[in-house]
């Protein structure tokens, strides 16, 4: 359920229109010809959160529909693609 929001790059609890808008943007960007896997991923994520009823069902029974819990845990992390962040030399030295 959370993965679907992350895949579409959306905040949690956004409105239906925003979900649809973002979905249309993404499928224009990742067409089935260009990137079939990503397209598939985006479409199935959209299906899971496109209506309030689908979101409620996903929230209620999402854990039951998971076949591999380890993979599901991993996919949550993977769904939210980390972005490279600007850091200065001092920050790097402190973090290292």
């Amino acid at each position, binding site marked *: 359920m959370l993965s679907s929001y*992350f895949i579409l790059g959306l905040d949690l609890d956004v409105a239906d229109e925003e979900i649809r808008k973002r979905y249309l943007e993404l499928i224009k960007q990742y067409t089935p010809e260009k990137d079939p896997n990503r397209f598939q991923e985006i479409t199935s994520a959209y299906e899971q959160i496109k209506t309030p009823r689908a979101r409620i069902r996903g929230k209620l029974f999402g854990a039951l529909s998971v076949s591999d819990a380890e993979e599901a845990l991993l996919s*949550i992390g993977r769904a939210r*693609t980390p972005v490279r962040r600007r850091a200065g*030399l001092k920050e790097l030295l402190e973090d290292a």
Partner: protein
Amino acid sequence: MIHEKFMASKKKKQKKARKKKSHLNIKNVSLPQLINHGKQFLEAGRARDAISSLKLAIKKGAPTDDINPMLFRAYLLRESQLRQKGMNVEANSIHCQAATFMPAYDKLSDMDLIAFMKCASIEDFISAYNRYIGENSRSSAIEQYLAGQFLIHRQWDMLDNLDERVPLKKDAAPVFRAAELMHSGDWETALACLKPVSRISSFAPARLFCLAMVCFYNEDDSGMQRALSMIPDEFSIYRVVKKLKKNSADLACLWEGPVNTEKRVAEVLEHLKKKRFKDAAGQLRSIAELICPDDSDRAIFHLLELVWRFTWDNTIDDYEYFRLIRRLLPENQSELLTAKTEFFEFEQPLINTGQYLMHIDTEFPDREHARIAQALILLHAVEKIHKENFFVQSLGCDFELHGPVLGITSDNPDEFIVEMTLKAIQLDPENRRGYELLANLPRYTRQTKKLVEEGLIKMLDYFPDDPFPCLELSTIYYEKNAFRKAENILKEAMKRAPHDSRVIDRHVISLLISADNSIKRKKLHLASRDIEKADALSGKATLPLVVEKQILFQITEQGQLSLFDGKVVAGAGNVLSVIDRAVAHLSPFEQISTIAMLILDTTGRFPEWDKKIFSELDRAFRHYAKSIKNLSSAHIVSLLKPLSKKVRPLTRSRHIAGVILERSKNILKHVDDADIIPVLDILVDVELFKPALDEIKRRIKNAGERVKVLLEFYQVVIRHLTEELFTDLKAFQKVKDKTPESDLEPLRAASRRLAKHASGPLKSALESFDFIMPVPSFGPMDDMISPFDLFEDDFFMDDDDDDFFMDDDEEYDDPGDFVEFLEVMKRNPGVFKSQLDTIIKALEHFIDSTGLRGAPDFLIKGLIKTIRKENPNMADTFSTLASLLDKKRLKALSSEARIFLFGKA
């Protein structure tokens, strides 16, 4: 805990002893060996051992000129080790000790100087380097290190303090601005600024570092690695370089969002497996904060839902899981998740569903969403109870607490799941799934039928174009013999979807029902009209039904109708030719199915028919059944399946398997192993135990392992149902024990399916799939008497009871007395009627006092047989009693008493 402490202290003592021993060993070695040890320890990074060896060497008189540089290095190594551990105070103290062993500058290596001056200010470092180059030549390593220090601290004025010979000052001009840009993260501009810096300059590694960072932001990780590989180890920012070389994800400041997820998840799993729940909780929290920084509690809830799945394979047990929930979530959320996971586990269906629904507002604060969620939960529960054959009568529930949320108002268990579905429909009337489920639920009583009807009538309004509610309502009306209502609602279905095949099929069935009624009333002209209409409309699914009625009509019709003028009039001799003509255009599967339906439909229905007609029907069946061997296994299973509920009004029974098996004994040989279990279910459902047992025996030897255990299980169950075995739970446990864990689920499902055919302790054992519980006692005499003793001739020999009217405390443990009591009551119908409650009480007392309570059906039936044998009027007495019972009294009867009165529980 005490054990752990004890072990830790033991280990500590052992370590101390080892240390002491090695110390003694060192004391005993010679000087050259000591120096050699010191060198080796130093090379191996064992600073403390190196220090001890070298200090001992000095004590033993080793020349300090040789030892001091080594000791100096050992102290510096120790200092850096302590700093890595964050023990700066201790490191400073070691640094002071190192200073005492510092060699003269002419004997000092450049690396030693760097190590010594690492924590010094630039000013001190420069001054030390100036002295160093007074005695030695310039060191590129030291200068690169210094260049790095300038970049970090940007104290450019210090460049003036450097010796004239050091070219850093000359090269530094472009670096001033670049350093500022590097600190602000503008690596691209910094790289451009550093362009004039030559490759041999001490500032060249800074340019390489900028290049690496530019590659990183351009997502060119291999380019970044190439640039990093050229940066020397002495460069001051090498620790950043080292981390970047290893894995850029290790530097969290370079990323937004979750990095190293796989590693983190692996760590969570490792913590869970090793029962380090505190660490697992910490890691889960950090993952949640990374993936959902704005609402990490929600992410934790979601992650914990996934972690719950690890309780399935016992990676963690339930207790540990619930502790983890409590550790990570606030109280209301933790109660919600506990209720939710218990609902998923569904061990106490009604209680678990009720509990979860009580918390639904926490999960869905929006009222509208909570309403839909509640409906979905109810539907999920009903579906599961229905699909997995839970025995509704045995489902516990706190009706006062959970009744309102579950929608249960009735005290009749048969109505529970229907009421729950209706509640779901009421909460979310736009969910079609609720109505579909409602239509498929069992409805044996008038009240359940009424409730289903109510729900479907509601659907008519919410789905004005959908023929589904019309079709389902028509089925209910036919079940209730409300033919006019059924026809009207089918007309509505035709209006809604005139071309829908489901509607057409149902219309065909409706016409056939009408034709069948006309045949019953001998109004054959009406029957022929309806059959013709049905024939014109029928599709593939309904064709055998139409043909069956055509044949029936032709056999019934004796030439009264002009419609069949010129055609062969059936009669006894022509049945075969009628059938041949009628089924000629059908497939072999349809032919067999049609004739089987015909036999099912006619047997016992037409007493006036010549017996020859029935034998002709049998002959016809056997003739067409020859093609069974050419049918697929799936087709044979379809043949044996009970007829669809929709055709129920058309035939006397839906159970066709008996008709087929009686006439085609070898049919089961053509069923594949993969399909045999559904076939066995069909046979057990209609109590065709013998063919089922024969078939199991026939194929059990050669069956695959998975099917074999199922066959063995069915064999044991059927042998119990057919009274071949008295309750012997060990036989079940034996099959269960030898079933691999991965195949247990089909066995468990089979057990639940078969439970409905059993009773007493066997039923409970099958329902719970638990065969190691003790067999409950069959009454107070259990210690001394086996239930089988009840059948001993002298068991019921009693002495002196001749008072047939029962006192409250009196018990009838002699069947003779009980029967006589009933007879006396029966002789006076007024008393019989007015004393019904007393009689029922007497019957229940009799069941208790003979120890029959909880006994298997066959045992009770056996006793009834014995009683009947000795008291021929018994059957009549019991049926009189049964006929007098009203609905309320019927409900209150125990299952054992039901067997007495009705022959089954």
